């Protein structure tokens, strides 16, 4: 996915086990919790607030995620190592997938 020229934020933590990219909404409580979970567990990750970018770009990202993972796109949507994904924030699922 080409994220060049988009306001992707990079967070640097001490855990670099995975490549984590989180698509989120700046207005959403569960998205905020998901990012706080990654921070609390010292993961390095990137995130993009898709509600703060142009609609056509956002829709292209959603379409690509939907086609790639065969899932409806809800937020937060985390892509891990370009192959696994997590949709929504259920802490137990994030712990399990990220082996926390």
């Amino acid at each position, binding site marked *: 996915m080409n994220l060049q020229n988009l306001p992707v934020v990079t967070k640097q933590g001490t855990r670099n086990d995975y490549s984590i990219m989180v698509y989120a*909404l*700046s*207005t*959403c*409580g*569960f*998205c*905020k*919790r998901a990012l706080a979970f990654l921070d609390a567990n010292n993961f390095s990750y990137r995130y993009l607030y*898709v*509600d703060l970018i142009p*609609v056509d770009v*956002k829709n292209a990202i*959603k379409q690509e995620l939907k086609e790639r993972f065969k899932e*409806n*796109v*809800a*937020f937060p949507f985390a892509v891990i190592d370009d192959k696994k994904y997590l*949709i*929504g*924030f*259920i*802490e137990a699922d994030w712990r399990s997938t990220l082996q926390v």
Partner: protein
Amino acid sequence: MMNDKTLEQTILFTQMVAHKQGWLLNPDKDFYDTLVEGLMQNYNRYGYFFCPCRDAEGRYELDKPAICPCIWSKPDIAEFGHCYCALYLSREFVAAGKTPRAIPDRRFEQA
């Protein structure tokens, strides 16, 4: 803009909805603050209180079902104890001391 909503107006809106429906607002202050600020931002962006945890199209006719309180809030609160974004909770859910978690978005159930 003159018609923008303030945080106070948005808080009042959520209080009125909760009161009318017999629901409680999320007692987790940090979570509630994020949602109410998100609701306010959505109103000031789109002109309506669009659900803060869903992605808006920015067109009223498409976004209408997810304008707060969304059309799925009642079945979600009945089934899961809270609405999709966990702004509104049932009294039973709060009394049991449960914590909201992400639930399926019924919007996708409509074929």
